[in-house]
């Protein structure tokens, strides 16, 4: 009798083990542990750059990108056509510390995520990240501020590829990325925190990919998302049809003035940016550059 009980208990345990394995194999249906949906509050961080207006340090600008920045005038923001120009989605993630809501479209039949949608408070920019394997649109389709995005999982990281972007700024003082740019964004949720890393590829104004790594949000279900409307301006400080810019060699922004230096002592040569200025080795090289003694006069740096 005792021996029979042992045999039955062994059979029971075996059956349980096989059932566990079968369940594990069958259970392909994804769960929500890495779901990025929710209301996300941005966490403060240091923006890149020294803060001196016109500073290109740390950005791998091409010569064309540097020349483009040199012609940029702050009056650009008062051009009527640009009054409602939003921060593009990729800049919104890094620049304005803006609240963000992400939500999923789920196919009811399969319970698979078809797409994630994103809404960011600044200028009400929205994105859709297609998860269903669809191709990107034809080359001649319209470009938008958010572009066209597709996503796929790399482990627990959502990797998003964005094409069809409009030209916009990398920093809001003339460092531009072109409409040929492609952005790869890696989203990673760690409990109640969400992190994004973006890698910007631009064959026109960058010589190497530009990587942003400082973007972090915390889950906040009580987050309020306010409206952020904008109506096209027809009258601004800049007469219609005018395009403010500096002629070559005549830029008046502080960073382009060799005679002054910022709070960090960033030399003029470093402020011209370029791929070399991204890497730590450049710090040693920078020590050999002359530094101006004069501080900029007036309100020339962010936060002053």
């Amino acid at each position: 009798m005792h021996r029979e009980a042992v045999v039955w208990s062994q059979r029971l345990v075996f059956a349980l083990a096989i059932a566990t394995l079968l369940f594990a194999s069958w259970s392909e249906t994804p769960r929500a542990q890495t779901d990025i949906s929710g209301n996300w509050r941005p966490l403060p961080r240091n923006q890149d750059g020294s803060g001196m207006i016109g500073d290109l340090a740390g950005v791998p600008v091409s010569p064309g990108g540097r020349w483009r920045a040199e012609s940029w005038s702050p009056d650009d923001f008062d051009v009527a056509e640009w009054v409602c120009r939003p921060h593009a989605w990729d800049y919104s993630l890094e620049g304005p510390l803006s609240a963000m809501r992400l939500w999923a479209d789920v196919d009811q039949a399969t319970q698979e995520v078809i797409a994630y949608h994103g809404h960011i408070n600044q200028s009400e920019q929205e994105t859709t990240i297609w998860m269903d394997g669809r191709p990107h649109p034809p080359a001649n389709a319209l470009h938008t501020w958010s572009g066209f995005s597709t996503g796929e999982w790399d482990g627990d990281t959502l990797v998003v590829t964005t094409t069809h972007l409009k030209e916009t700024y990398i920093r809001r003082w003339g460092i531009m990325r072109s409409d040929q740019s492609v952005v790869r964004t890696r989203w990673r949720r760690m409990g109640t925190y969400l992190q994004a890393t973006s890698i910007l590829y631009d064959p026109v104004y960058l010589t190497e990919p530009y990587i942003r790594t400082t973007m972090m949000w915390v889950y906040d279900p009580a987050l309020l998302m306010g409206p952020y409307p904008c109506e096209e301006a027809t009258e601004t400080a800049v007469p219609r049809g005018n395009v403010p810019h500096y002629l070559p060699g005549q830029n008046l922004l502080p960073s382009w003035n060799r005679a002054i230096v910022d709070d960090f002592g960033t030399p003029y040569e470093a402020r011209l940016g370029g791929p070399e200025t991204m890497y730590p080795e450049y710090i040693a090289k920078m020590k050999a550059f002359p530094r101006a003694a004069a501080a900029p006069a007036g309100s020339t740096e962010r936060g002053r």
Partner: protein
Amino acid sequence: MSRLPRAATSRLILASVTVMTTLGVFGFAERVSTQAGQGGVRQAAWPPALRGPAPGEVEVLPVQGQVFLITGAGANITVQAGEEGILLVDTGLASMSDKVWAAVQTISKGKLRYVINTTEHADHTGGNATIAAKGETVPLRERTYTAGPMGTLEYNRASVISYLTVLHRMSAPTGQAAPTPQAAWPDNTYSTPQKRFYFNHEPVVITHQPANTDGNSVVLFRKSDVVSAGDLLDLTGYPLIDLKAGGSLQSIVQALNRLIDTTVPAAHASGGTLVIPGHGRIADHAEVAYYRNMTTIIRDRIQDMIRKRMTLEQIKAARPTRDYDARYGRATGAWTTDMFVEAAYRSLAAGTN
């Protein structure tokens, strides 16, 4: 045959079960966290290649409302199709006519009633003869009518509209050789600031807009909210300046400002009125603004250099387009950066407007 003791057998079984269960649970957890199996999504190629039409092929893209775009046939072709038939803006290269017509037929089987030429250049008008012959002019009189000017209209051909100078440049005075066959010539010209009509239940407003030549036309489909801009907007390169045909950089800047005034953006400077350029992708108000900025900045630089009495060679050496060359410049082909700078210089130096 030797046998393990019962206690040892039980321990072995228990250990096996523990290992299998653990593996099972961990395997399950892994699938849950990665969602890797979802939809069998393949790793996308990087960087993603954007598809345009293959060489020698055309592609149809819906634009907005009743308007479509055909690319790949030389200049872009705008198609407006509805209950009353088909209207084309430009006809592309002559060699692509059959493929263009086949593409038009995928949009509508209606009658081709109108062709509008935005300029006389061959990449815009090359298909006129073949394609217009597929159509039929809207009859203004009964077919047997012979009295008066209406009697001269040829019904078995779509009406080809253009600004008057386009006809002048495609034809020639009697007795002289014309650069294009008569079958390609516009037969419905205008010489006023605007020509307007109502077709497919929407206003079609054709505006004379000197820019690349003195005879550019810009076509607004008012209900579809689409503008066909012709070569005034070329998102693949610097704007063509045809000096012999009266084009100038200053005219292009002015025309782009008028195009900006015509287009109304939707919220946050995106979408709204859509613009079909002469070459390149579908655009909107913001894209026109960027292009206007580029042409204006280059104009101002060259103008400044002219004021400083720099020669053409000095201006070319100073590279007034240098920050835009990687986007719009070409070293070879029919319209190079060098040709653009030279034409811009000559039109500005002459004060051509």
